[in-house]
Protein backbone atom coordinates (compact mmCIF):
# COMPACT_ATOMS: atom_id res chain seq x y z
CA UNK A 1 0.00 0.00 0.00
CA UNK A 2 1.31 3.43 -0.85
CA UNK A 3 -1.75 5.65 -0.75
CA UNK A 4 -5.35 4.61 -0.27
CA UNK A 5 -8.07 7.15 -1.00
CA UNK A 6 -11.46 6.29 0.44
CA UNK A 7 -14.75 8.12 -0.03
CA UNK A 8 -17.74 7.13 2.10
CA UNK A 9 -21.05 8.75 1.16
CA UNK A 10 -24.68 8.56 2.17
CA UNK A 11 -27.36 10.32 4.23
CA UNK A 12 -26.55 12.26 7.35
CA UNK A 13 -27.20 10.00 10.36
CA UNK A 14 -25.92 6.78 8.78
CA UNK A 15 -22.61 6.98 10.61
CA UNK A 16 -20.63 7.97 7.53
CA UNK A 17 -18.26 10.19 9.48
CA UNK A 18 -17.86 7.66 12.28
CA UNK A 19 -16.94 4.87 9.86
CA UNK A 20 -14.33 7.14 8.29
CA UNK A 21 -12.98 8.08 11.68
CA UNK A 22 -12.55 4.44 12.60
CA UNK A 23 -10.60 3.71 9.41
CA UNK A 24 -8.42 6.79 9.94
CA UNK A 25 -7.68 5.79 13.53
CA UNK A 26 -6.83 2.26 12.54
CA UNK A 27 -4.39 3.68 10.00
CA UNK A 28 -2.88 6.01 12.58
CA UNK A 29 -2.34 3.16 15.02
CA UNK A 30 -0.52 1.29 12.30
CA UNK A 31 1.82 4.28 11.88
CA UNK A 32 0.35 5.43 8.60
CA UNK A 33 -0.14 9.02 7.54
CA UNK A 34 -3.86 9.73 7.62
CA UNK A 35 -6.40 12.46 7.03
CA UNK A 36 -10.16 12.62 7.56
CA UNK A 37 -12.33 15.30 6.06
CA UNK A 38 -16.10 15.54 6.41
CA UNK A 39 -18.43 17.25 4.01
CA UNK A 40 -22.00 17.89 5.00
CA UNK A 41 -24.76 20.44 4.98
CA UNK A 42 -26.11 22.40 7.95
CA UNK A 43 -28.54 19.66 9.04
CA UNK A 44 -27.71 17.06 11.72
CA UNK A 45 -29.75 14.27 10.10
CA UNK A 46 -30.91 13.82 6.52
CA UNK A 47 -29.20 15.69 3.73
CA UNK A 48 -26.10 14.23 2.18
CA UNK A 49 -22.88 13.53 4.02
CA UNK A 50 -19.58 12.29 2.77
CA UNK A 51 -16.22 11.66 4.27
CA UNK A 52 -12.78 11.61 2.65
CA UNK A 53 -10.23 9.33 4.29
CA UNK A 54 -6.66 9.02 3.09
CA UNK A 55 -4.31 6.39 4.50
CA UNK A 56 -0.80 6.54 3.16
CA UNK A 57 2.86 5.72 3.69
CA UNK A 58 3.67 9.25 2.49
CA UNK A 59 2.63 12.59 4.01
CA UNK A 60 -0.89 13.41 2.83
CA UNK A 61 -1.17 16.30 0.36
CA UNK A 62 -4.70 17.35 -0.39
CA UNK A 63 -7.11 15.77 2.11
CA UNK A 64 -9.94 15.91 -0.42
CA UNK A 65 -10.66 12.60 -2.12
CA UNK A 66 -11.85 13.41 -5.64
CA UNK A 67 -10.80 10.15 -7.32
CA UNK A 68 -11.32 7.37 -4.76
CA UNK A 69 -9.70 3.94 -4.83
CA UNK A 70 -12.63 2.83 -2.73
CA UNK A 71 -16.13 4.27 -2.81
CA UNK A 72 -18.74 3.27 -0.25
CA UNK A 73 -22.21 4.27 -1.43
CA UNK A 74 -24.86 4.09 1.28
CA UNK A 75 -27.63 5.68 -0.77
CA UNK A 76 -28.59 6.09 -4.41
CA UNK A 77 -27.73 9.80 -4.78
CA UNK A 78 -24.19 9.01 -3.60
CA UNK A 79 -23.75 6.20 -6.11
CA UNK A 80 -25.13 8.42 -8.89
CA UNK A 81 -22.84 11.26 -7.90
CA UNK A 82 -19.56 9.45 -7.32
CA UNK A 83 -19.66 6.27 -9.44
CA UNK A 84 -17.79 7.90 -12.31
CA UNK A 85 -15.08 9.34 -10.04
CA UNK A 86 -13.67 5.98 -8.89
CA UNK A 87 -10.28 5.17 -10.42
CA UNK A 88 -10.29 2.31 -12.98
CA UNK A 89 -9.52 -0.89 -11.09
CA UNK A 90 -10.90 0.62 -7.91
CA UNK A 91 -13.66 -0.75 -5.73
CA UNK A 92 -17.25 0.27 -5.08
CA UNK A 93 -19.13 -1.09 -2.07
CA UNK A 94 -22.88 -0.71 -2.43
CA UNK A 95 -25.44 -1.00 0.36
CA UNK A 96 -27.81 -3.16 -1.65
CA UNK A 97 -30.65 -2.78 0.85
CA UNK A 98 -30.96 0.89 0.00
CA UNK A 99 -29.68 0.91 -3.59
CA UNK A 100 -31.58 -1.24 -6.03
CA UNK A 101 -29.66 -0.48 -9.17
CA UNK A 102 -26.40 -2.12 -10.20
CA UNK A 103 -23.14 -0.32 -10.82
CA UNK A 104 -22.94 0.50 -14.52
CA UNK A 105 -19.15 0.49 -14.86
CA UNK A 106 -17.29 -2.68 -15.78
CA UNK A 107 -13.75 -1.45 -15.00
CA UNK A 108 -14.16 -1.49 -11.22
CA UNK A 109 -14.64 -4.17 -8.59
CA UNK A 110 -18.13 -4.07 -7.12
CA UNK A 111 -19.26 -5.51 -3.80
CA UNK A 112 -22.96 -5.58 -3.00
CA UNK A 113 -23.75 -5.96 0.66
CA UNK A 114 -27.22 -5.57 2.19
CA UNK A 115 -25.74 -3.71 5.15
CA UNK A 116 -28.86 -1.87 6.31
CA UNK A 117 -30.93 -5.07 6.09
CA UNK A 118 -28.33 -7.11 7.95
CA UNK A 119 -28.16 -4.45 10.63
CA UNK A 120 -31.92 -4.50 11.28
CA UNK A 121 -32.14 -8.30 11.20
CA UNK A 122 -29.44 -8.51 13.84
CA UNK A 123 -30.95 -5.96 16.18
CA UNK A 124 -28.37 -3.26 15.49
CA UNK A 125 -30.21 -0.89 13.14
CA UNK A 126 -27.69 1.93 13.58
CA UNK A 127 -24.63 -0.12 12.71
CA UNK A 128 -24.91 -0.64 8.94
CA UNK A 129 -21.87 1.60 8.70
CA UNK A 130 -19.73 -0.75 10.78
CA UNK A 131 -20.97 -3.79 8.85
CA UNK A 132 -19.51 -2.11 5.79
CA UNK A 133 -16.31 -1.25 7.66
CA UNK A 134 -15.96 -4.97 8.48
CA UNK A 135 -16.30 -5.70 4.77
CA UNK A 136 -13.65 -3.12 3.89
CA UNK A 137 -11.14 -4.60 6.33
CA UNK A 138 -11.86 -8.07 5.01
CA UNK A 139 -11.34 -6.90 1.41
CA UNK A 140 -8.03 -5.33 2.35
CA UNK A 141 -7.14 -8.37 4.43
CA UNK A 142 -6.64 -6.11 7.42
CA UNK A 143 -9.15 -7.61 9.83
CA UNK A 144 -6.77 -8.08 12.72
CA UNK A 145 -8.40 -8.06 16.14
CA UNK A 146 -5.63 -6.09 17.81
CA UNK A 147 -5.90 -3.15 15.42
CA UNK A 148 -9.69 -3.27 15.38
CA UNK A 149 -10.02 -3.23 19.16
CA UNK A 150 -7.45 -0.49 19.56
CA UNK A 151 -9.12 1.74 16.96
CA UNK A 152 -12.60 1.07 18.36
CA UNK A 153 -11.38 2.04 21.79
CA UNK A 154 -10.29 5.37 20.36
CA UNK A 155 -13.39 6.27 18.38
CA UNK A 156 -16.02 5.16 20.88
CA UNK A 157 -16.27 7.73 23.64
CA UNK A 158 -15.77 6.69 27.25
CA UNK A 159 -19.47 6.85 28.10
CA UNK A 160 -20.39 4.57 25.19
CA UNK A 161 -17.84 1.82 25.80
CA UNK A 162 -20.76 -0.61 26.17
CA UNK A 163 -21.27 -0.18 22.42
CA UNK A 164 -17.86 -1.67 21.68
CA UNK A 165 -19.12 -5.25 21.52
CA UNK A 166 -21.99 -4.30 19.19
CA UNK A 167 -19.58 -2.56 16.85
CA UNK A 168 -17.31 -5.57 16.88
CA UNK A 169 -20.20 -7.90 16.14
CA UNK A 170 -21.34 -5.66 13.28
CA UNK A 171 -17.88 -5.70 11.78
CA UNK A 172 -17.68 -9.48 11.99
CA UNK A 173 -21.08 -9.72 10.31
CA UNK A 174 -19.80 -7.53 7.51
CA UNK A 175 -16.57 -9.43 7.13
CA UNK A 176 -18.47 -12.71 6.72
CA UNK A 177 -21.25 -11.34 4.52
Amino acid at each position, binding site marked *: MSTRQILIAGFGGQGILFAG*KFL*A*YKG*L*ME*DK*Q*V*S*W*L*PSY*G*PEMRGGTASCSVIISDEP*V*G*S*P*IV*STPDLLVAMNLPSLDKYESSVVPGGTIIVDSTLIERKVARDDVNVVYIPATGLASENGMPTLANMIIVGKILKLYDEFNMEGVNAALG*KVISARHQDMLQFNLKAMELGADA
Partner: protein
Amino acid sequence: MTDKVLMKGNEALAEAAIMAGCRHYFGYPITPQTEVAAYMAKRMPKIGGTFLQAESEIAAINMVYGVASAGFRVMTSSSSPGIALKSEGLSYLAGADLPALVINVQRGGPGLGGIQPSQSDYFQATKAGGHGDFRMIVLAPASVQEMADLTVKGFDLADKYRMTSMILADGTMGQMMEPVSLNYGEPTKYDKSWAVTGTECARPHNIVNSLFLQPDELEKFNFIRYERYKQIEENETMYEEYMMEDAEICVVAFGISARVAKNAIVQARAEGIKVGMIRPITLWPFPKAPMLKASEKVHTFISVEMSMGQMIEDIELAIRCRRPVKLCNRVGGMIPSPDQVYASIVETAKEGGAQ
Protein backbone atom coordinates in the same frame (compact mmCIF):
# COMPACT_ATOMS: atom_id res chain seq x y z
CA MET B 1 2.42 2.91 17.86
CA THR B 2 2.54 6.64 18.16
CA ASP B 3 1.77 9.32 20.73
CA LYS B 4 -0.21 11.17 18.11
CA VAL B 5 -3.95 11.57 18.36
CA LEU B 6 -6.51 12.35 15.69
CA MET B 7 -8.08 15.72 16.24
CA LYS B 8 -10.11 18.18 14.25
CA GLY B 9 -8.23 21.36 13.41
CA ASN B 10 -10.63 23.42 15.51
CA GLU B 11 -10.14 21.16 18.53
CA ALA B 12 -6.36 20.99 18.20
CA LEU B 13 -6.30 24.77 18.02
CA ALA B 14 -8.43 25.09 21.16
CA GLU B 15 -6.32 22.62 23.15
CA ALA B 16 -3.12 24.34 22.01
CA ALA B 17 -4.53 27.66 23.22
CA ILE B 18 -5.13 26.16 26.64
CA MET B 19 -1.61 24.73 26.67
CA ALA B 20 -0.30 28.19 25.78
CA GLY B 21 -1.86 29.49 28.97
CA CYS B 22 -5.10 30.90 27.59
CA ARG B 23 -7.73 30.71 30.33
CA HIS B 24 -10.28 33.11 28.90
CA TYR B 25 -12.36 32.53 25.80
CA PHE B 26 -15.24 34.63 24.52
CA GLY B 27 -17.17 33.76 21.42
CA TYR B 28 -20.42 33.54 19.57
CA PRO B 29 -21.33 30.43 17.56
CA ILE B 30 -20.92 30.30 13.80
CA THR B 31 -20.15 27.46 11.38
CA PRO B 32 -17.48 26.27 10.60
CA GLN B 33 -15.63 27.21 13.80
CA THR B 34 -18.18 26.08 16.39
CA GLU B 35 -15.98 23.20 17.58
CA VAL B 36 -13.57 25.77 19.02
CA ALA B 37 -16.30 27.18 21.25
CA ALA B 38 -17.66 23.72 22.07
CA TYR B 39 -14.21 22.53 23.11
CA MET B 40 -13.62 25.59 25.26
CA ALA B 41 -17.04 25.20 26.86
CA LYS B 42 -16.10 21.67 27.89
CA ARG B 43 -12.53 22.33 29.03
CA MET B 44 -12.42 25.81 30.55
CA PRO B 45 -14.65 25.13 33.59
CA LYS B 46 -12.48 22.11 34.48
CA ILE B 47 -9.27 24.13 34.62
CA GLY B 48 -10.56 27.23 36.33
CA GLY B 49 -10.85 29.22 33.11
CA THR B 50 -13.62 31.30 31.62
CA PHE B 51 -15.78 30.20 28.75
CA LEU B 52 -18.39 32.76 27.91
CA GLN B 53 -20.82 32.71 25.02
CA ALA B 54 -21.38 36.40 24.54
CA GLU B 55 -24.61 37.99 23.30
CA SER B 56 -22.88 38.95 20.06
CA GLU B 57 -19.53 39.03 18.29
CA ILE B 58 -19.12 42.68 19.24
CA ALA B 59 -19.59 41.87 22.90
CA ALA B 60 -17.11 38.99 22.64
CA ILE B 61 -14.28 41.07 21.14
CA ASN B 62 -14.78 43.77 23.78
CA MET B 63 -14.57 41.14 26.52
CA VAL B 64 -11.27 40.15 24.91
CA TYR B 65 -10.19 43.80 25.19
CA GLY B 66 -11.01 43.75 28.90
CA VAL B 67 -9.10 40.58 29.72
CA ALA B 68 -6.14 41.60 27.56
CA SER B 69 -6.00 44.90 29.50
CA ALA B 70 -5.59 42.91 32.69
CA GLY B 71 -2.59 41.13 31.18
CA PHE B 72 -4.02 37.66 30.62
CA ARG B 73 -3.85 35.52 27.50
CA VAL B 74 -7.24 35.64 25.83
CA MET B 75 -8.83 34.63 22.57
CA THR B 76 -11.98 34.72 20.50
CA SER B 77 -12.90 32.81 17.38
CA SER B 78 -15.40 33.27 14.62
CA SER B 79 -15.92 32.88 10.90
CA SER B 80 -15.98 35.48 8.16
CA PRO B 81 -19.21 37.48 8.81
CA GLY B 82 -18.51 37.28 12.53
CA ILE B 83 -15.00 38.67 12.10
CA ALA B 84 -16.46 41.60 10.18
CA LEU B 85 -18.55 42.38 13.26
CA LYS B 86 -15.44 42.26 15.43
CA SER B 87 -13.52 44.76 13.31
CA GLU B 88 -14.24 47.75 15.55
CA GLY B 89 -12.81 45.83 18.48
CA LEU B 90 -9.75 44.78 16.46
CA SER B 91 -8.97 48.43 15.82
CA TYR B 92 -9.44 49.30 19.52
CA LEU B 93 -7.10 46.46 20.52
CA ALA B 94 -4.50 47.87 18.12
CA GLY B 95 -5.03 51.43 19.36
CA ALA B 96 -4.51 50.32 22.95
CA ASP B 97 -1.55 48.05 22.08
CA LEU B 98 -3.18 44.98 23.57
CA PRO B 99 -2.12 41.40 22.82
CA ALA B 100 -4.86 38.98 21.80
CA LEU B 101 -5.43 35.97 19.56
CA VAL B 102 -8.30 36.04 17.09
CA ILE B 103 -9.29 33.01 15.01
CA ASN B 104 -11.02 33.26 11.65
CA VAL B 105 -12.12 29.91 10.22
CA GLN B 106 -13.21 31.36 6.89
CA ARG B 107 -16.37 30.51 4.98
CA GLY B 108 -17.65 31.66 1.61
CA GLY B 109 -18.75 35.26 1.18
CA PRO B 110 -19.57 38.08 0.78
CA GLY B 111 -22.57 38.62 3.02
CA LEU B 112 -23.75 35.64 5.02
CA GLY B 113 -22.33 33.62 2.14
CA GLY B 114 -22.27 29.89 2.85
CA ILE B 115 -20.76 27.47 5.33
CA GLN B 116 -18.19 25.86 3.04
CA PRO B 117 -14.45 26.71 3.14
CA SER B 118 -13.04 29.89 1.63
CA GLN B 119 -10.00 32.16 1.72
CA SER B 120 -11.74 35.32 0.69
CA ASP B 121 -11.02 37.25 3.89
CA TYR B 122 -7.41 37.76 2.81
CA PHE B 123 -7.80 41.51 2.30
CA GLN B 124 -9.74 41.85 5.53
CA ALA B 125 -7.07 40.01 7.54
CA THR B 126 -3.95 41.46 5.96
CA LYS B 127 -5.00 44.99 5.07
CA ALA B 128 -8.31 46.03 6.53
CA GLY B 129 -8.87 44.49 9.95
CA GLY B 130 -10.52 47.73 11.03
CA HIS B 131 -10.22 51.50 10.79
CA GLY B 132 -7.00 53.38 11.32
CA ASP B 133 -3.34 52.58 10.71
CA PHE B 134 -2.63 49.16 12.12
CA ARG B 135 -1.53 45.65 11.33
CA MET B 136 -2.27 42.22 12.68
CA ILE B 137 0.13 39.29 12.50
CA VAL B 138 -1.70 36.86 10.23
CA LEU B 139 -0.83 33.16 10.44
CA ALA B 140 -2.07 30.66 7.85
CA PRO B 141 -1.98 27.01 8.96
CA ALA B 142 -1.95 24.24 6.33
CA SER B 143 -2.36 21.21 8.60
CA VAL B 144 -4.00 20.29 11.87
CA GLN B 145 -0.54 20.27 13.46
CA GLU B 146 -0.01 23.84 12.31
CA MET B 147 -3.45 24.84 13.58
CA ALA B 148 -2.07 23.94 17.02
CA ASP B 149 1.55 25.10 16.62
CA LEU B 150 0.64 28.48 15.13
CA THR B 151 -1.85 29.08 17.94
CA VAL B 152 0.97 28.84 20.48
CA LYS B 153 3.17 30.95 18.21
CA GLY B 154 0.35 33.46 17.78
CA PHE B 155 0.05 34.01 21.54
CA ASP B 156 3.82 34.45 21.85
CA LEU B 157 4.00 36.97 19.00
CA ALA B 158 0.98 38.85 20.35
CA ASP B 159 2.59 39.19 23.77
CA LYS B 160 6.02 39.99 22.39
CA TYR B 161 4.80 42.84 20.18
CA ARG B 162 1.65 43.85 22.10
CA MET B 163 -0.74 43.37 19.22
CA THR B 164 -3.34 41.04 17.77
CA SER B 165 -2.34 37.79 16.09
CA MET B 166 -4.91 36.27 13.80
CA ILE B 167 -5.09 32.65 12.71
CA LEU B 168 -6.52 32.75 9.20
CA ALA B 169 -7.79 29.22 8.69
CA ASP B 170 -10.63 27.92 6.55
CA GLY B 171 -13.45 25.45 6.96
CA THR B 172 -11.31 22.55 5.74
CA MET B 173 -8.54 23.18 8.26
CA GLY B 174 -11.13 23.53 11.01
CA GLN B 175 -13.13 20.42 10.16
CA MET B 176 -10.50 17.96 9.01
CA MET B 177 -8.84 15.46 11.33
CA GLU B 178 -5.17 14.60 11.16
CA PRO B 179 -2.70 13.10 13.60
CA VAL B 180 -1.40 15.77 15.91
CA SER B 181 1.12 15.83 18.67
CA LEU B 182 0.69 18.51 21.29
CA ASN B 183 3.92 18.94 23.19
CA TYR B 184 4.60 22.44 24.36
CA GLY B 185 6.64 23.40 27.37
CA GLU B 186 5.61 25.95 29.95
CA PRO B 187 4.13 29.02 28.25
CA THR B 188 6.70 31.79 27.74
CA LYS B 189 6.15 34.74 30.08
CA TYR B 190 6.35 38.26 28.69
CA ASP B 191 6.65 41.54 30.52
CA LYS B 192 3.17 42.93 31.10
CA SER B 193 4.02 45.74 33.49
CA TRP B 194 1.60 47.90 31.47
CA ALA B 195 -1.41 45.81 32.50
CA VAL B 196 -4.16 47.18 34.70
CA THR B 197 -3.84 44.90 37.69
CA GLY B 198 -4.39 47.26 40.61
CA THR B 199 -1.63 49.57 41.84
CA GLU B 200 -1.85 48.55 45.52
CA CYS B 201 -0.74 52.15 46.05
CA ALA B 202 2.76 51.04 45.06
CA ARG B 203 3.04 52.35 41.51
CA PRO B 204 1.51 54.97 39.24
CA HIS B 205 -1.72 54.06 37.49
CA ASN B 206 -1.56 52.13 34.26
CA ILE B 207 -4.08 53.31 31.69
CA VAL B 208 -5.31 51.24 28.77
CA ASN B 209 -6.96 53.46 26.22
CA SER B 210 -7.24 54.05 22.50
CA LEU B 211 -8.46 57.66 22.66
CA PHE B 212 -5.79 60.32 22.10
CA LEU B 213 -7.26 63.72 21.37
CA GLN B 214 -3.92 65.48 20.95
CA PRO B 215 -2.91 64.80 17.34
CA ASP B 216 0.82 65.01 18.01
CA GLU B 217 0.50 62.42 20.74
CA LEU B 218 -1.61 60.13 18.52
CA GLU B 219 0.92 60.55 15.72
CA LYS B 220 3.73 59.57 18.07
CA PHE B 221 2.00 56.32 19.02
CA ASN B 222 1.39 55.50 15.36
CA PHE B 223 5.07 56.05 14.59
CA ILE B 224 6.14 53.86 17.52
CA ARG B 225 3.73 51.13 16.46
CA TYR B 226 5.05 51.11 12.90
CA GLU B 227 8.62 50.84 14.18
CA ARG B 228 7.48 47.63 15.85
CA TYR B 229 5.81 46.46 12.65
CA LYS B 230 9.11 46.99 10.84
CA GLN B 231 10.87 44.71 13.33
CA ILE B 232 8.19 42.09 12.79
CA GLU B 233 8.65 42.23 9.02
CA GLU B 234 12.37 41.75 9.53
CA ASN B 235 12.23 39.00 12.14
CA GLU B 236 8.98 37.08 12.06
CA THR B 237 8.23 36.29 8.42
CA MET B 238 7.56 32.57 7.96
CA TYR B 239 7.18 30.53 4.79
CA GLU B 240 7.87 27.10 3.34
CA GLU B 241 9.71 26.54 0.07
CA TYR B 242 8.80 23.36 -1.79
CA MET B 243 10.84 22.13 -4.77
CA MET B 244 12.01 25.66 -5.53
CA GLU B 245 15.71 24.88 -6.20
CA ASP B 246 15.40 24.65 -9.98
CA ALA B 247 11.83 25.90 -10.39
CA GLU B 248 10.82 27.88 -13.48
CA ILE B 249 7.23 28.22 -12.33
CA CYS B 250 6.39 29.25 -8.77
CA VAL B 251 3.04 28.42 -7.23
CA VAL B 252 2.10 30.64 -4.31
CA ALA B 253 -0.59 29.21 -2.03
CA PHE B 254 -1.47 29.02 1.65
CA GLY B 255 -3.68 26.83 3.82
CA ILE B 256 -5.78 24.18 2.09
CA SER B 257 -4.90 25.59 -1.35
CA ALA B 258 -1.24 24.80 -0.67
CA ARG B 259 -2.16 21.21 0.19
CA VAL B 260 -4.03 20.82 -3.09
CA ALA B 261 -1.22 22.53 -5.01
CA LYS B 262 1.35 20.09 -3.60
CA ASN B 263 -0.44 17.17 -5.26
CA ALA B 264 -0.45 19.03 -8.57
CA ILE B 265 3.23 19.92 -8.25
CA VAL B 266 4.20 16.29 -7.62
CA GLN B 267 2.19 15.29 -10.69
CA ALA B 268 3.76 18.04 -12.85
CA ARG B 269 7.28 17.17 -11.65
CA ALA B 270 6.67 13.59 -12.75
CA GLU B 271 6.03 15.03 -16.23
CA GLY B 272 9.33 16.91 -16.08
CA ILE B 273 7.85 20.37 -15.47
CA LYS B 274 10.07 22.45 -13.21
CA VAL B 275 7.56 23.84 -10.76
CA GLY B 276 7.82 24.64 -7.06
CA MET B 277 5.88 26.46 -4.40
CA ILE B 278 6.36 29.20 -1.87
CA ARG B 279 3.80 28.76 0.87
CA PRO B 280 3.39 31.84 3.06
CA ILE B 281 2.88 30.83 6.69
CA THR B 282 2.66 34.47 7.74
CA LEU B 283 0.38 36.39 5.37
CA TRP B 284 1.35 39.54 7.21
CA PRO B 285 4.25 39.96 7.21
CA PHE B 286 4.14 38.63 3.64
CA PRO B 287 7.27 36.66 2.58
CA LYS B 288 8.41 39.24 0.04
CA ALA B 289 12.14 38.44 0.04
CA PRO B 290 11.95 34.79 -1.11
CA MET B 291 9.51 35.76 -3.85
CA LEU B 292 11.68 38.58 -5.13
CA LYS B 293 14.61 36.16 -5.14
CA ALA B 294 12.55 33.53 -6.96
CA SER B 295 11.58 36.08 -9.62
CA GLU B 296 15.17 36.02 -10.85
CA LYS B 297 14.80 32.43 -12.05
CA VAL B 298 11.06 31.83 -12.31
CA HIS B 299 9.27 32.92 -15.50
CA THR B 300 5.72 32.86 -14.11
CA PHE B 301 3.99 32.84 -10.73
CA ILE B 302 0.65 31.14 -10.18
CA SER B 303 -1.45 32.22 -7.25
CA VAL B 304 -3.67 29.36 -6.14
CA GLU B 305 -6.35 30.73 -3.85
CA MET B 306 -9.95 30.41 -2.81
CA SER B 307 -10.66 34.06 -3.51
CA MET B 308 -10.88 36.21 -6.63
CA GLY B 309 -7.13 36.85 -6.61
CA GLN B 310 -6.74 38.89 -3.45
CA MET B 311 -3.20 37.60 -2.83
CA ILE B 312 -2.02 38.47 -6.36
CA GLU B 313 -1.48 42.09 -5.40
CA ASP B 314 0.95 41.11 -2.65
CA ILE B 315 2.84 38.77 -4.98
CA GLU B 316 3.09 41.46 -7.67
CA LEU B 317 4.37 43.98 -5.13
CA ALA B 318 6.85 41.46 -3.72
CA ILE B 319 8.30 40.70 -7.15
CA ARG B 320 7.91 44.34 -8.30
CA CYS B 321 5.78 43.17 -11.24
CA ARG B 322 8.82 41.61 -12.91
CA ARG B 323 6.94 38.46 -13.88
CA PRO B 324 3.35 37.64 -14.76
CA VAL B 325 1.20 36.33 -11.90
CA LYS B 326 -1.63 34.06 -12.98
CA LEU B 327 -4.68 33.12 -10.98
CA CYS B 328 -5.91 29.58 -10.38
CA ASN B 329 -8.92 29.73 -8.10
CA ARG B 330 -12.33 28.58 -6.93
CA VAL B 331 -14.59 30.66 -4.73
CA GLY B 332 -17.87 30.64 -2.82
CA GLY B 333 -17.03 27.52 -0.81
CA MET B 334 -15.57 25.50 -3.70
CA ILE B 335 -12.04 24.11 -3.44
CA PRO B 336 -9.69 23.86 -6.43
CA SER B 337 -8.92 20.26 -7.41
CA PRO B 338 -5.35 19.02 -7.95
CA ASP B 339 -6.36 18.48 -11.61
CA GLN B 340 -7.31 22.14 -12.00
CA VAL B 341 -4.00 23.30 -10.53
CA TYR B 342 -2.11 20.76 -12.64
CA ALA B 343 -3.84 22.02 -15.80
CA SER B 344 -2.87 25.57 -14.89
CA ILE B 345 0.76 24.52 -14.38
CA VAL B 346 0.87 22.64 -17.72
CA GLU B 347 -0.63 25.61 -19.57
CA THR B 348 1.87 27.94 -17.90
CA ALA B 349 4.77 25.66 -18.85
CA LYS B 350 3.63 25.74 -22.50
CA GLU B 351 3.43 29.53 -22.48
CA GLY B 352 6.90 29.66 -20.98
CA GLY B 353 6.41 33.12 -19.53
CA ALA B 354 5.20 34.80 -22.74
CA GLN B 355 2.51 37.34 -21.90
